[in-house]
Structures are given as C-alpha cells and as structure tokens.
C-alpha cells in the first residue's frame, strides 16, 4: 500500500508536478491546486503514452519499410480491418470520457465555496486591481488569512479583465455589469502573483498584484492597521493612497500629462479658467467644492463628467487628498 503511494508520488514528481513547483507546474498555494495537478499529471502520462506510441511506430515503420533497392514495392495487405478500427475508436473514447468526468468533478469542487467564507470585493479597472474589505478598506493587493476559505466577488469598471493566481490554479474573467464569484483557501503564508489574463489594452501586462497570505492572527492585525491609515499616516501620504485606491488616478495624472480631468501637478494655488469666463484660484475651498460638487466649477477644456464624491469620501479623507495635491508642485 505504502509502496503504491510512493510510486504514485513519484509519478507526479516525474511529471514535473510537486507541491513546491516542478518542471510543469508552479508551487501549490491553495487546497484546490493539488487536485488540479493530479489530473494534470494523469493527462500528461496518457498523452506521453500515446505520443510515444505514435512516434515509435512511425520511426519503426520508416526504418523497417524504407523504400530501398529490394523494397521498391509495398507488401500486399488488407486495405481495412473493421474490428481493429473499431478498437482504436472505442479505446480513446473510454479514456477521454474518464478524463472528462475527472475534470468536471474537480471543477465542481473548486467552484463550490464552503459556507461562511470571508468575502472580499474585487474590482478590475484599466489597469489595476482593487480589493475592498468588509470594513471599507480598499487595497491594491489581496491580503488574506491562511487556511481560511475566501470568497471573491468580482466585477469590472470598464472592459473584461481576467483574474488569475497561478499558484492557486484560480482564474475567472471579470466582466463589467456582472458579479462573478470564486473562492480559494490558501495553505501557506507568503506572497503569490496575480495577473490579468484577458487582454485589456495598453497596460494589460502591467496589471499585476499580489496575494499576501498572512500567518494566523496576522491578517486581523494588518486589517486594523490598514483600515486606520487615516490616523497613522501623515495626511499627504494618506492622500496619495486615497488617490490610487478611490478612482482619482483614472482621470487625473500627477505628472502633468493629460487625461479626462486636469492634472494635479502644479494645480494647487494656480489660477483656473472656469467655463463661463471666470477665473478661480485653486485653493482648499475650490478643491473641496470640486470633489463634492464637481459640475459647479468646470475648468475650460474639460467635460462635466466627474461623479460627486459626497458620501463616498469622509471629511478627513478630503483634507488628506488636498494635502496630497499641495505636495505636487
């Protein structure tokens, strides 16, 4: 029994599939990964068998029956053999049905989240991921506790993105206008790569993030601290974080380049021409009005398309953002 187990384990190793990562597969970071890898190695062995069968027969035939003096004609033989042909139709059917059933079973397992999973909202946008936690904290990386079922509820703000964590064997397209749900349970603390796999334009290949799996107890500590950044960080630094995580960065640059909205570089205390002929000074009050009532004073050359952030940003958060804008000289 033990010998049999040992042999099966070796088959996986030879197939380049190991918990720590091998020739074929990356390391196994989730409970679902091992099940997927077992099926992968099984198909690999089936494929290797048939491939070697085809290539060996091909080579043997070429060597033995090569056209040469004394063998200019083929040997007479039957032009078909129905029992043989039915055999090599039925055997592959049986094998692929086996693979199909196995593949479907594992798929169901990894798609059915356990009850009382911890839920994180995932938003895909050009070209970053945002993760929203139950306490309202928004982060650019996915922090999770180890050995806890995590349920992700994902949607996109613009085009289709693909949420992919290779180490978890987890992938799902993130479609605008829909909520898609996946789950996983990480088995080891550490950092794991997140990619976007559905092509989404210029920054598609930069849409990277990390899953950070915390030790037991570490996640709660992190979340408390991260959720409290308004109290622990200097206002300008907190403002920068809000700039990146609350959607400002999609329209406003901080380096002077153009966008849907005015750049923030050099904005503070500058003279802004307003639609209708007025000119206003971009001081604290002006910026606060722009955030809470964006269509009131629209600068010349821009469309009144910014949504209001009334109720979406608290007073101290608005202050922090204004402090951040002040630093962008």
């Amino acid at each position: 029994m033990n010998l049999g187990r040992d042999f099966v384990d070796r088959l996986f190793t030879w197939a380049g599939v190991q918990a720590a990562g091998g020739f074929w597969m990356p390391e196994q970071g989730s409970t679902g990964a091992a099940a997927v890898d077992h099926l992968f190695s099984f198909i690999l062995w089936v494929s290797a068998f048939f491939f070697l069968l085809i290539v060996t027969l091909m080579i043997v035939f070429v060597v033995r029956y090569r056209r040469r003096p004394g063998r200019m004609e083929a040997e007479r033989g039957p032009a078909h053999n129905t029992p043989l042909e039915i055999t090599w139709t039925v055997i592959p059917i049986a094998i692929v049905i086996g693979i199909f059933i196995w593949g479907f079973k594992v798929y169901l397992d990894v798609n059915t989240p356990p009850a009382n999973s911890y839920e994180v909202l995932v938003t895909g946008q050009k070209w970053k991921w945002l993760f929203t936690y139950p306490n309202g904290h928004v982060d650019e990386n996915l922090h999770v506790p180890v050995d806890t079922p995590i349920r992700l509820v994902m949607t996109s703000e613009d085009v289709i993105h693909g949420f992919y964590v290779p180490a978890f064997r987890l992938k799902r397209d993130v479609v605008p206008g829909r909520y898609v749900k996946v789950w996983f349970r990480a088995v080891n603390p550490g950092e794991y790569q997140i990619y976007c796999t559905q092509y989404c334009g210029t920054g598609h290949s930069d849409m990277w993030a990390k899953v950070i799996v915390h030790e037991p107890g570490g996640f709660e500590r992190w979340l408390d601290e991260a959720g409290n950044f308004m109290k622990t960080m200097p206002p300008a630094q907190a403002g920068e974080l809000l700039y990146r995580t609350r959607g400002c960065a999609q329209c406003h640059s901080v380096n002077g380049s153009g966008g849907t909205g005015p750049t923030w570089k050099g904005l503070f205390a500058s003279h802004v021409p307003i639609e209708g002929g007025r000119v206003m000074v971009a001081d604290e009050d002006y910026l606060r009005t722009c955030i809470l009532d964006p269509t009131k004073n629209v600068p010349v050359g821009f469309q009144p398309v910014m949504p209001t952030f009334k109720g979406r940003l608290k007073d101290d958060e608005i202050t922090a953002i204004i402090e951040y804008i002040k630093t962008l000289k």
Partner: protein
Amino acid sequence: MTGIESGAAGFGQGGNALGRDNYLNHERGIKSWLLTRDHKRIGVMYLVVILSSFFLGGIFAELIRTKLLTPGNSALMKADTYNQMFTLHGAIMIFLFVIPGIPASLGNFVLPLMLGAKDVAFPRLNLASFYLWVGGALLALGSMVTGAVDTGWTFYTPYSTTTNTNVIMMVAGIFVLGFSSIFTGLNFVVTIHKLRPAGMTWFRMPLFLWGIYGTAIIQIMATPVLGITLLLLIAERALGIGIFDPALGGDPVLFQHFFWFYSHPAVYIMILPAMGVISELVSVFSRKHIFGYSFIAMSSIAIAVLSFLVWGHHMFVAGQSTLSSMIFSFLTFMVAIPSAVKVFNWLATMYKGSIWLATPMLYVLSFLFLFGIGGLTGLFLGALAVDVHLHDTYFVVAHFHYVMFGGTVIAFLGGLHYWWPKMFGRMYSEFWGRIGALLVFVGFNTTFFTQFVMGSHGAPRRSYHYQPQFEAYHRLSTIGAYILGVGFVVIAVYLIHSLLRGRPAPANPWGGATLEWQTSSPPPHDNFESTPAVGDPYDVEAWTWDGAVGGFVRRAPAGQPAGS
C-alpha cells in the same frame, strides 16, 4: 514496359508540357491572368497572395518574438505597438492565410483535376471569390494605415467597441473575406456533387476531396454567423446600438458566443483540408493503398458536424453556467476521437509499405509528430479543472500553434511540394527540400514547445511585459522563431529557383493514382486531352517507376480499364 509514354494518346496523356501548349502559356499578358476563369490560374493567383500574407504575418511574428527577448520596455516597440503587432499577426494569419490557405490555392488547382473535370462548377463565381479576397484583404490591411487595430484577432467586446483604433475597417475587411470563403465553399460543394465523373462514387473519391467537402459545408454554414456578428459590432461602434457593451445595456459575453460559433468551426475549416492532404500523401509515399478509407472519410464528416457544438470551450472561465461548461467539455472530448482515428489509419497505411522519404513525406512525418502534440495537449484544455489554470496562458498559444502550424501549415507545405511539379512543370531541389523541412521542424518545436512549459507555469498570453522568471523560456522561443524564419527563406529560395531552373517534371513524379497525375505537367488549358479513366484513387501499386520517363507509369497495358 508497357505503360503510357509521355505525350502518348490514351487515358494517361502526360509528360512535361512546358514546351507545349499548357495553362500557363495558353494565353499571355497580365489581363489574361486577371480576368481568367481557369481554376488553375485562380489557384496560382491565390497561392501568390496567400503566401504574401503568410510572409507579412511572419514578419510580425519575428518582430513580436524579438521584443520578447527582454521582459521590460523595448526600444523596438512600445506596448501599444506590440498590441497592434500581435493583433495583426493573428488576424492576417487566420483570416488571410490559414482559413483560405489550402482550399483556395491547392484546392482550387487540384479539385477539378481530381474529378477529371474541366473546371469548377461556377468559374465566374470562383474569380469573384478571388477578388472578394483581394478587396477584403485591402480593407483589413488598410486599417494598418488608418489606426492599426489593437484588440487581438478575437475582437472581444467591450474593448473592441471602446478602443480608438480603426476596428470598423478591419472588421469590414473580414466581413468581405467571409463572402470570399462562402463563395469558394459553395462552388466546391456544387462541383463535388455535380461534376464527379462516371464511376467515381462518393466512396471512390480521393480523401482530399472529402476534406475539402467537409470544409466547404462548414464555410457555408458557419461564416454567415461571423458576418452577422461583425455587422452587429460595427453597428454598436458606429451607431451606439447597445448589443455587447454593458454601458449601453448589452452583454459582452454574447459576443464571445457569436464569435466562437464561427471561429471554432473555423479551426476545422483550417484542419480538415490539411488532413485530406495528409491522406493523399501518406498513401502515395508509402506506395500502398490508404488504410481504412471509409473511417477516414466518415471522420471528416463527423468532425464537420461536431465542430459546431464545441464553441463553449472557449468560455470555461468567461462565466457561462456550470451545466454549459460540462456539456461543452464533453463534446470537446468527443471531437478528439475522429482525429485520433485518422492518425491511427495513417500509421496503418505506412505499415509494411515502401516508405519513400521524399520532401512531401517528411512533412507527413512532421505532421504526425506535431499534430500529435497539438491534439493531445487539447486533452488538458478540454478537462474543465485543468483548463481553468491553463486558459489564456502561453499553454494555449502553444497548443493552437501546434494544431494550426504543426497541422495545417505543415500539411500545406507537404501539399505544395507534392503538387508543385504539377502546377509549374518543374521539380525543386530534393536536397534543399529536405533541409527546409528539417529547419522548419526544429525551429517550430524550439519556438512553441517552450511555450507549453511557460504557460503551465502561469505566463499570461498577449503580454508586453513579463516576469523575469520567464525570460529564459522567451529567449529560447525567440531563437526557435529565427530558425523557423531561416527555414522559410530556404524554402522560398529553392522554390523560386526551381521555377526558373528546375528539372522538367514528368506527368507523375510521385506515382499518385488520382486523376491529376494522368495529365501533363503543367496541365493543358482544358485539363485533359481526353477523358481520364476513373479507378481506385489509392491504387498506387499499379504505378511503377520508369527511369526512361523519369517518373511513374502505369503497369497495366494501355486501354485496359484500371481495376480496383
């Protein structure tokens, strides 16, 4: 020896016709080509434009691979340029090269000859189809100048309806190309139904024609769906009608269903004619009757039917229901069976044959090796749980290149080398032919096998930047792409050289038993000087090498009907 001599009267007119009246010199002048209704000339014109498209698509591929030598930014191109390059590479290779490839060039040339007919059923429609191809290609390539598309060749919404590149022009081009494809398919279906000669029943038809026939059915039935989908896409972009964009109340996944309802069968539009070519070649170069004719023929039809029922396997991670995914996964596994059956039948044909390792046969061996890998890696992608991990990674890129390049392009090259003497009346250098086949084989595997490993480790496709851990794989893959490029340059050089200096080809240089080998090389304008006798298309053993002719001649005395 009592065979048919070159130029002799009888059912096997033949010999080399370069010095005599043939389809190439029957009429002269550019106008006689541009307005021709001769299927052979249309086939040659298709060959020229299709190979030019392949060249262009290949240039894009080499540029992409060169960028990917390093993981970061590249002086060669920016991310946006890279995105446009892989889109153009895909769109050109798929719509301008692989889909029309074998049917429109080799098929056009060979189909009526194999039937012993003078032409296809509708010669004018055939020429119209060619000009639709040209028009569609100009529109599609015109988009390069007016804002090269950056959507990927799949045009997924809502990205394709919101990007500011010239999607409408590209998509309109593909819409027109679709009609070219439909016209060709319609023409071939009618030709095979109505112009088969007396004695050629369905099951005495060359298997290449079964392949072309299955393809033509798919072309007629699936291409209109693509046309409608692309029109809807244009309507959404140009008029703001909400069909696919959720911002307008549409459903982006609906586009994927429509798109793959065509584009999955299109995979079989690409591979069925290739399988037909291999069936011809494996019999002729094993000097042996094809094994299991009816299983091969029926498997072509089974593939054509099943190909319509598996599109959903492109959407296992797109959010379709678990039930749909289950059904599509099951049907996907079923479509693997007819392909496996064909492979076993081809191997059985080689068994106890007299295997002649001429250049076309090297492509057959290459095909079995590469298509074997391409088909077997499909098992990974058909299995739902494993597909979730591999979807949209380089594993998929490698898989479909093994099928489309390792399958279709290799078979196309095999067929091109096989019918080249018939088309142009000249032999190419056998030595360089083998070198070319070897370079392509080595270059291809180096390029794409690496991508399987990279993909299973999680490298996402269509990526300008990549993680440093993948750099070694990318470098190896690029080296392979360069070897592949050298292989194609070698092939281009000796083929062009053969047109000018090649040894004049005999009527039947390979000993094929299908009817096209019973006319001169190149054939006369009307294909045959007198009606050829229909026999068993795989009775290759009835043909034997004759050193005096420099080609194969029939063993049976002249005038005696060919037996089966």
